[in-house]
């Protein structure tokens, strides 16, 4: 199963240590593989350093792909994280 979605970084600080760690944590709890695409750069969602070096400040739009049996669940939870601004929105 493959799920694709566009997600926007909404929290003030962008994808920084806490938010990236939350994504990696989520990715590691799922069997599905997670990919992020920004411009022509594609990285895997289970590497905190790749997420950080992708450099996604607030407002960045990312194309996200999850591939695997629990891809939908992974994408739903990931969407909630992004929507919630990783719990940082005031």
């Amino acid at each position, binding site marked *: 199963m493959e799920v694709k979605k566009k997600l926007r970084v*909404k929290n*003030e*600080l*962008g*994808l*920084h*240590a*806490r938010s*990236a*760690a*939350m994504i*990696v*944590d989520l990715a590691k709890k799922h069997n599905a593989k997670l990919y992020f695409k920004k411009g022509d750069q594609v990285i*895997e969602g289970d*590497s*905190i*350093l*790749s997420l*950080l*070096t992708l*450099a*996604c*400040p*607030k*407002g960045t739009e990312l194309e996200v792909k999850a591939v695997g049996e629990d891809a939908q*669940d992974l994408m*739903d*939870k990931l*969407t*909630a994280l992004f*929507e*919630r601004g990783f719990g*940082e929105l*005031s």
Partner: protein
Amino acid sequence: MSVGKRIELKGIPVSPGIVIGKAHLVDRSKIKVPLRKIDKKDVPYEIERFKKAVEIAKKQLSELKNKLPDRLKEHAFILDSHMMILNDSMLYDATINRIKEKEINAEWALKESFEEIKNLFSQIEDAYISERINDVENVVQRILRNLMGHTENEISEIGEKSIIVAQDLSPADTASLDTKKVMGFITDGGGSTSHTAILARALKLPAVMGLCHATKQIEDGNILIVDGDTGKIIVNPDDEDILYYTEKKDQRERLRSSVLKEANKPAITLDGYRIRVMANTEFLNEVYALKELGAEGIGLYRTEFQYLSHSGIPTEEELFEDYKKAAEIMSPDPVIIRTLDIGGDKFKGEFAKINETNPALGLRAIRFCLKNIDIFRSQLKAILMASAYGNVKIMLPLISSVDEVLETKKIIEDIKKELDKKKISYNPKTEIGIILEVPSSVMIADLLAWFADFFSIGTNDLIQYTLAIDRTNKEVAYLYDPFHPSIIRMIREVIRIGQEHKIPVSICGEMAGDPLCVPLLIALGMRQLSMNSRAIPFIKKLIRSISVKELKKDIEKIFKLSTSEEIRSYMLARMKELFPEIDIIGDYFYMQEQRQ
């Protein structure tokens, strides 16, 4: 005691407070890494050595995490992220590959991997993200120490109470500081957005970073004054310095403790006006803490969380349970529940298909709810059912016309009939209020007043819509300004209409917790404020030291000023006269740990 020359240093203040004590120098210099060619047959051994060093590092960090004092628990993610870095393919796999391909020692291979990562980080424009390279470096240094058999020289092993002076402290170092002995710390490197700074604030340890050469200018045992408010360090202070800072320190501490002690007393101005100070919140588990901070109700209960955290739309029962609990805890004080304030783009499935070029002006909040009556109905029903358990009020967001209010009221009447029929109890007099956050609603506040039990001014959106500024757009964000003359005129008008129609007016945007805005709002006649809970004790204290009669004279002058900047400077100067503490203690409540 060593008596040396008095020196003043200036760094970046990262954690407030003043300490006077002895310097304790800690060696945290970076490890010199040797390059060694190795034999092909030794490659597996070298890889094993690297893996082991990482394994040990992981154990060290996880032990540290388990021992983390309670007040640092919410920052445990910093250590988690360090553990993730340890095994990240860019560091871990890359180093192993280097050892294999280049037949070099693990230390050098690791160093090269780090340099490559560092290079990538240096290309990141966002300073906040690129600064995270420091965390990677901390992790690398830890692995190197393990590889080279350097025992960690534990900072916790200091004999007497002292101030730590170091080139750098890693977050892990900071988390393991013994706060009984360590009075504060200063470092050559780092800045206020580093994880070390965040931990210092959580530990309430005064700290100054970015001093460049402090470790070279300060000797072990020197007496130091560290002012975490301003970033000033005095090495070998004279008697006068010590007297001045001891006094400043006492003043601060007295004030801070009195502010917190009086948090639960009402906020009454010098001339007897009672102001209700409430909290904005969205999480049920936060509600208990609100009372301790002196909140007299929840002036804005955001409800989006449950819709976003579930994989689907929450059930009526789930919503009811949440609202009921909040109402019970706060009773008899009010819990003002804002109905769903998001657009369809936040939901999965059918709604997600809606594609809007400008969501801020799109189908969201009340508009979305009125188009999706089932979702709206179930939330309104849950709120009504909860009204039987406390002082619950309904508040409607993004109202721009009377029709929206009438339509909502019809739905509510309908639900009441259903509840009557089913003999489910609720408060039939549950108040329905309107958030004024769209300029049109302010213009027709006199018309809306006929259909509302109360108004709440949502200044964040009102400012955005009135000034036509997208706050999230870096190019124009600087134009966002609560002191814009148009905004204070709108607020004045809404308060006047509220008084005329005898309906209460409150304010629930960030302005309500801003120490320069609050006196202005109160002078205009605002008697209810709802703000970020952390600001409550300080704002209450501020209210107790102002007089409405006095401030009314200022209002006349302020309405003659024509720019935001003039108004802001006027208020700042005036507040320094009326409430000099604004300088001393403000940062304690406002220096928030947002930057992580």
